[in-house]
Every structure is written in structure tokens, then in C-alpha cells.
């Protein structure tokens, strides 16, 4: 008796599910061509929040398309991009010559689309009451390769600061944030000291700085926006006064040199696929509102339109070569 009941019940369930499936299929087939397939995205942890938010919205729009977004750092993502393992790379810096070269060797052409601005924030622990703004020279003194094993205490930077060990936290070598920071501060991309906590995962850096009174670190402004209560933002002085990174100062360029555009890279082979095309168009349509939501500085509308045009002509071009 029991088993019969169970059987009846499960068959009832199955038929219910079957009906449900039927219904949604019907709904979908009302749209003329249902997009399906898989879009693989990887790259910068700085761009990740924007891309992930857009991917989520896109899932509602085209539920049959699977969009996966990884976080290997800009350099890590490009390594996969040049091997054609991913469709789109999130990048917090422009492609390097060496990477462009590899694309060429593998017969991949690509397009760079800027999607938003980001500021690189310099951060300390909220308990830090001695540091409110820092000059570019001081940052350089802390982070340059020659500082390794030498600049170990706060008072070596300014004598009035405490005679305590300085604990440094920063982006790892595979991240575009690292390349950008070293270029802007030290003057040479990839040149820095090596004795600091280096992680591609910004959450590790947030955790480290927020729990260490003598910490100093840097990462993308958006991660500060998410963790405002745990961190203290430091103003950066480039010679014309101390400037805190905000929506305004990053967008108008006065927070120099630590503000930068961030990009997505799309390869030609992937852009030929309908679902990728739709996704990139969806991306450009929505990036302005979403980037503001997740803590980035949106591009002005004219700039976005330029990127759209750029993408369309890229599509035309890649179709032509086919």
C-alpha cells in the first residue's frame, strides 16, 4: 500500500514537472530565435564585479546561455585568451605587446572595449590615525624594488610616524592592478618589492588590511566601496594637493595617476557567435548603470556609444574576412 502511494505521488510530481517544462518551452519558442550556448569569461578581479553583475542580468534575458566568469587576474586571463580558451577577457590594463604577439601567432584578432573607469585606492586600517594623505614619492619609496628588506618601519617614511613595522598588502603579480600600480608609482610595470602579501583575490587584501593596525595596501576602488566600514581611504598627493578617489575625481582625472579605464577584450572567433554578440551588446547597453551600482565610475554616454560603434565595425570587419 505504502509503495503504491509513493509511486502515485512520484508520478504525479513527474507529470507536474513535465508540464512546467512544457510551458517554459512554449514561452521560449515564442521568441523567434532562442539564444543558447556557452560564454566563457575570465581575467581581472577588478572588472569581475561588473561583468558578473551583467552576466546575472543577462541570464534573466537569455536563460539558455551559460555565462561563466572566472577570476585569474588580467595576465592570467590573457594567457587563456591567446590560446582561444575563453571568449572574453576582463582586463584592468591594455593588452601587452607580448600578448598581442601571441594572439597574432595563433590567428586571433580581438577588440578592446573600454567599459568603465576605476580608481586605485590606497588604504589603511581604520585605527590608523597618523596617515591621511600620502605623496607619490612616498608611495614609490615604499613599493620600489630597492625598498625590499630596507623600508620596514613606518617612521622610515615620515619620521613622525610610529616606529612600528609596516605590513604591506597589494595585488598579486598576475593582476592588471599590480601592473598598473607599479607603472604609475614606480615608473616601470612589474617592478616592485616582493616582501608583501600579494594576492589576486582582493577579499584577502580587505581581510588583511581591516585586521591589521599597521597595514598599508592598494586595490581597486570598488572593493573599498563594498567594505567602507572596515577600511580607511588615504588621499593621494601628486604635487597639486591631496585628492581622495571618488566618482568625481576619478571621472574628471584629478585623481591622477591612480585612475584608469578598464576593458573587456573580445576575440573575433567568439564574436561571430550569436550569443557572444548579444552578450557584448547587452554589456555595453547596461554597463553604465551597473558599473555605478557596483562602485565603479561609468563612462559618459558619448564614450559608450563610441564603444558600440567600435564593436559593430569590428563585427563587420570580422565577417568580411570570413
Amino acid at each position, binding site marked *: 500500500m505504502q509503495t503504491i502511494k509513493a509511486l502515485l505521488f512520484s508520478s504525479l510530481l513527474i507529470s507536474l514537472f513535465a508540464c512546467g517544462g512544457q510551458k517554459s518551452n512554449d514561452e521560449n519558442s515564442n521568441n523567434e530565435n532562442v539564444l543558447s550556448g556557452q560564454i566563457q569569461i575570465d581575467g581581472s578581479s577588478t572588472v569581475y564585479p561588473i561583468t558578473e553583475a551583467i552576466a546575472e542580468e543577462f541570464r534573466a534575458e537569455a536563460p539558455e546561455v551559460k555565462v561563466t566568469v572566472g577570476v*585569474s*587576474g588580467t*595576465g*592570467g*586571463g590573457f*594567457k*587563456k585568451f591567446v590560446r582561444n580558451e575563453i571568449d572574453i577577457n576582463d582586463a584592468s590594463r591594455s593588452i601587452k605587446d607580448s600578448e598581442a604577439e601571441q594572439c597574432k601567432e595563433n590567428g586571433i584578432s580581438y577588440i578592446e572595449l573600454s567599459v568603465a573607469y576605476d580608481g586605485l585606492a590606497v588604504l589603511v586600517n581604520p585605527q590608523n590615525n597618523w596617515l591621511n594623505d600620502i605623496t607619490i614619492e612616498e608611495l614609490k619609496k615604499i613599493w620600489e*624594488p630597492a625598498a*625590499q*628588506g630596507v623600508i620596514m618601519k613606518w617612521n622610515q617614511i615620515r619620521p613622525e610616524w610610529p616606529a*612600528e*613595522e609596516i*605590513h*604591506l598588502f597589494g595585488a*598579486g*603579480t*598576475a593582476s592588471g592592478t599590480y601592473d598598473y600600480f607599479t607603472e604609475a608609482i614606480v615608473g616601470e610595470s*612589474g*617592478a*616592485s*618589492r*616582493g*616582501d*608583501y*602579501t*600579494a*594576492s*589576486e583575490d582582493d577579499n*584577502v587584501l580587505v*581581510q*588583511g588590511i*581591516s*585586521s*591589521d*593596525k*599597521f*597595514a598599508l595596501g592598494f586595490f581597486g576602488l570598488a572593493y573599498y566601496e563594498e567594505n567602507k566600514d572596515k577600511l580607511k581611504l588615504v588621499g593621494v598627493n601628486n604635487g597639486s594637493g591631496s585628492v581622495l578617489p571618488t566618482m568625481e575625481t576619478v571621472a574628471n582625472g584629478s585623481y591622477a595617476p591612480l585612475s584608469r579605464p578598464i576593458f573587456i577584450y573580445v576575440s573575433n572567433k567568439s564574436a561571430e557567435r550569436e550569443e557572444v554578440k548579444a552578450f557584448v551588446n547587452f554589456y555595453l547597453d547596461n554597463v553604465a548603470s551597473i558599473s555605478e551600482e557596483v562602485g565603479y565610475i561609468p563612462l559618459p554616454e558619448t564614450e559608450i556609444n563610441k564603444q558600440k560603434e567600435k564593436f559593430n565595425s569590428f563585427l563587420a570587419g570580422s565577417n568580411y574576412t570570413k
Partner: protein
Amino acid sequence: MNKTREYIIERLLFLCAAITVFTTISIILVLLVEAVGFFQEVSIIDFLTDKEWTPLFADKHFGILPLVCGTLLTTFIAISVALPIGLTIAIYLSEYAPKSFRKIFKPLLEVLAAVPTVVYGFFALLVVSPFLQKFFPEMSGFNSLSAGIVMGIMIIPFISSLSEDALYAVPKSLREAAYGMGSTRFQTAFKVTVPAASSGIVVSIILALSRAIGETMIVAIAAGQQPRLTLDPTVPIETITAYIVQVSMGDVPHGSLEYKTIFAAGITLFVFTFILNNISFYIKKKYQEKYD
């Protein structure tokens, strides 16, 4: 018919045993081959004497010392926590506790070893570190002290359970003789039973040590990721295992020198645990007291 069946079963059993040996040998081979590739590019003297470890940066240094130092520091802290507590528990359970209590308590204690290490890691980072910071406000959130303490808690069952087994195995006649001479319980425990079981206790400590040296998740989460040659337990450090995790999670191209560093680090780790295991084997064989 029966004979062939028997034969097949025997072969199958042999195969199962061979698989474990084969796996060990292939792991050692892979480690060796990749490490040889590494040492062709980096001199072993630099590897053992350089005081900096920055293989991922432009100015590369390949001194394993900071990583070894971090590993030994966390292990030392762990064993300083686990040894007194574990041994006390073992002596209490075997010499003092009523049998029924021992029956319930011992399995409960072993649950400690069954907690996933990732849980221990977050426990260290989010509970122990903030708690310690109440006493040492200068302390970093990532530090070897909290990672070491939590690792110590994790390895308590290794010491307590194995030591307790050793103590429990000491023949009753020895204890009775001690009581007969007028010893108190305390005297019997520390002057007779513990020395008689000492080889088993030492082996349990060594096993706990090699578990602590190889422990990965706790230190990767809570001890930091900054290779540093220091004995200060309040600052971020990096252990050999945490480095291997950091590099294998990132995107280091296969075959590059950076990639080979994980095998060099791995073989260093292997040498440590290998030596410890051999010491424990030797002690077990040489010093085990026989009472027949």
C-alpha cells in the same frame, strides 16, 4: 576451479597493495624530476642560504629559508599547544578516568580531527585572531600565532589518542607492582606508566609534528601569504604549503621556472616529513619495551 579463484583473489589483493607503493614511488619521481629541472636553473646553495623568497616578482630570489621558517614556526606553536594538553588528556584517560567515561570521551575527542581543516582556518582567522587582538592590539589579522594555536587544537587527538593507546597497553602487573610498593596514583602514572610507554608517546608526537608540517588549509587561510624570515608570531608569514597553494591557484604557466618552484618547495616538505616518519619508525623499533 577453486584453485584459479584463489589465485585470482591473491593477485587482486597483491595489486591493491602494489597500487599504494606505486603511487608513492610515482609521486617521488615526479617531485624529483621537476625539482631537478628547478635546480638546473637555481643553485642549491642559493636555495638553501638566500634569505628572500620572491620567485613571482621581477627581482627573483629563491631562498627557501623564509618558507621553512614559517612552517617551523607554526608547527612549533601547534606542538606547544597540543603536547601538554594532549598528554594530560592521555594520562587522565588511561590512569584516572572511569572506564565508562573513557568510552564516551575518546571518540568525542577524535571528532576534533574530523573537523574539515578549512573550517579550522576560518575559525582561526575570524574568531581566534580577533580574540587575541584584544590582548595584543598590535597584532596582524594574518599571523602565525592564531594559525598555530588552532592547528594545535586540531592535532590534540593525534597525541592524546595514540599516547593513550600506548599508556593503556602498559601491563597491569607494572601498575600493581608500583601500588604494592606504596606509590600513589600520581607517582605510578609519571614514574612507571609514562616511562614504560615513552616510545609510543614519542611516536605520537612525531606523527602530530608531521601532520602539522604538512597542514595546508589553516595556514593558507589564517597565517598570511608573505614569505618572511622571522620568529615573531604576530605578523603575516607564509608556510611551504601555503606557497604551493598560492601558486597552484594563480595562473603560472606550466613548465616555467615559477611553476617549478612549487616542486622545489614540495620536495623540501617531503624531506621533512620523510625524516620525521623514519625517526618515528626507528624509535618504535628500537625503544619499544617488551613485557611478556
